[in-house]
C-alpha cells in the first residue's frame, strides 16, 4: 500500500491494523486508514472486497452480526470505539449511517426526522424539535419539497426523496461522521445528482465516508479514495491521483475496467 503524502493532521477517525472476521473467514486484513474531518472519503472496490464490512466497523454496525469479530484499533477523536466504556448508542449518534436502500420508518416525514433528537433528548420543547426538523430537512435539501406535507408518511416519498429523508434523519442528531453505504445505487440519475450535490454541501460540516460501486461517483464527490481488494486496502490517496495516476497495478486495472 502506498500512503504518499497523505498525512491528515487531525483525523476524525483513525483505524489501525484492523481485522474483521465472520466466524473463521477473514473479511478485512490489517487495514489502517485515517479519515479527515473536512473530507469526503470514498471506498471503492469489487463486490466482496470488504469495503462495506470495513465501513460498518466504523460505527460498530457489525456488532449486530453474531459471528463478526473485530481486532485492531478504531478511534473516533482519539477514543477507542471498541473500548468497553464506549456507549454504542451514543457512538451511532456520533457516527451516523445511510444505507443503500432508503429505509424511512413507516411514520410521518416529521417523525422520521424527529425520532433521533427525541430519543437522544436533544429537543427540550416542541419549538426546539420543530427547529431541528426544519434545519435537518433544509440541510438535506428536502425542506421545500415536503414542508407542506410533514404529516404524510415518509414511505410515500419518491426513492430519491426517501434517501434525502434518511440523510436528514442522520443529520438531525448532529453527528460528527456520516457513513454512506452505496446511497445512490437505488436512485435514478437526477436523484443521484441531488444526493451528490448534498454530499458536496455537507462536506466540512461532517466527515463523510461513502462506499460506492460507481467510480465516477467516487471521482465526483470525494477528495480521498481508498481501493479495497480481497479484504486489504490496496491503495489510499488523493482522489485526483487515484483516478489519473494510480500507483498500484491492481488499482489501475480496477478503475480502467481491466479487472477480472
Amino acid at each position, binding site marked *: 500500500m502506498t500512503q504518499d503524502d497523505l498525512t491528515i493532521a487531525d483525523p476524525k477517525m483513525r483505524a489501525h491494523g484492523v481485522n474483521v472476521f465472520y466466524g473463521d473467514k477473514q473479511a478485512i486484513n490489517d487495514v489502517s486508514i485515517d479519515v479527515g474531518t473536512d473530507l469526503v472519503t470514498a471506498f471503492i472496490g469489487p463486490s466482496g472486497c470488504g469495503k462495506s464490512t470495513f465501513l460498518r466497523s466504523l460505527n460498530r454496525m457489525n456488532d449486530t452480526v453474531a459471528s463478526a469479530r473485530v481486532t485492531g484499533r478504531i478511534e473516533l477523536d482519539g477514543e477507542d470505539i471498541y473500548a468497553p466504556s464506549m456507549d454504542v448508542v451514543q457512538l451511532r449518534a456520533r457516527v451516523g449511517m445511510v444505507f443503500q436502500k432508503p429505509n424511512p420508518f413507516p411514520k410521518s416525514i416529521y417523525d422520521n426526522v424527529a425520532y433521533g433528537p427525541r430519543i437522544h433528548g436533544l429537543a427540550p420543547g416542541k419549538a426546539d424539535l420543530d427547529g431541528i426538523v426544519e434545519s435537518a430537512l433544509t440541510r438535506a435539501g428536502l425542506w421545500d419539497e415536503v414542508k407542506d406535507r410533514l404529516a404524510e408518511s415518509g414511505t410515500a416519498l419518491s426513492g430519491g426523496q426517501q434517501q434525502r429523508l434518511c440523510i436528514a434523519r442522520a443529520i438531525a442528531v448532529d453527528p460528527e461522521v456520516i457513513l454512506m453505504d452505496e446511497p445512490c445505487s437505488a436512485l435514478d440519475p437526477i436523484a443521484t445528482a441531488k444526493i451528490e450535490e448534498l454530499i458536496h454541501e455537507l462536506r466540512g460540516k461532517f466527515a463523510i465516508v461513502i462506499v460506492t460501486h460507481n*467510480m465516477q461517483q467516487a471521482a465526483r464527490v470525494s477528495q480521498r479514495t481508498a481501493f479495497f481488494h480481497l479484504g486489504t486496502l490496496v491503495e489510499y490517496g488523493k482522489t485526483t491521483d487515484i483516478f*489519473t*495516476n494510480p500507483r498500484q497495478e491492481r488499482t489501475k*486495472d480496477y478503475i*480502467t*475496467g481491466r*479487472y477480472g
Partner: protein
Amino acid sequence: MAIVNDHTVKAFDEDLNRLRGLISEMGGRAEQALLQAMTALNTGDLALAAQVVEGDRKIDALEAEVEQLAVQTIALRAPMADDLREMIAALKIVSVVERIGDYAKNIAKRVALMDQTRSIEAIPVMMSMSGIVAELVHDALDSFAARDADLAVRVTVRDKIVDDFYNSIFRTLVTFMMENPKHITESAHLLFIAKNLERMGDHATNIAEMVHYVVTGERMEERERGETPEGSAAAEQEQG
C-alpha cells in the same frame, strides 16, 4: 513496455486499437511527406512536391477522425488512469502530427520557387538532417504505439542532434549568402526549410514527452532529456 491486460468490455479495446491505428497511419503519412518533400527538393521533382501538398489533405482528415473518435470514447467509455491519459495525449499528438505535415507541405511548396539552387552545398547536409528528423518522428510515434517510455526519452535526447544540424546549416547559409548575393532568395528559402526541419524535431520531442506522461503518469524531467532549456542553442544562433 508494461504488460497491459485487456478491458472487460472488449469494445473499449477495439476503440483504443482503432485510435492507435489511425494515429500510426497519420504519423506514417507525415514521415513520408517529410521524406518526399526533401527528395523533391533535392531532385527538383515538381510532381513529387505536388503529391506532398495534395497528401496533406489526408493527414488533416485523419486528425479530424482521431479527434472525433477520442471525444466519442471519452464520452461513452469514461476512461480512467492510463486510458484517460492516452485519450488526452492522442488529441494533443494528432494536432502536433498535423503541424509536422504542414511543415512538410511548406517545404514541398518551396521546391518550385528554387530550381536553380541544387548546387548549394547546404542541401546535402539538410538531407542528412531530414533523415534524422524523420527517424525522430517515426520513433516518437512508435513509442506511443508501444507505450515505450524509454524510447520516448531517447527521442528527446536525439533532438539535440537536429538542433546542432540547424545551427551548422544556418552558419553555412549565411556565409553562402554573403558570398553569393544573387542567391539570397533561394538561400532564404533554404533557411526556412532548415527551420521547418528543426521545428519538426521539436514536435517529435513534444510527442515523446506526451508518451512519457501517458506511460508513467509523470512529466519528463529536464535532466532526463539531458539538455539546456528548449531551443536555446538555436535561439542564440539566430540572434548572433
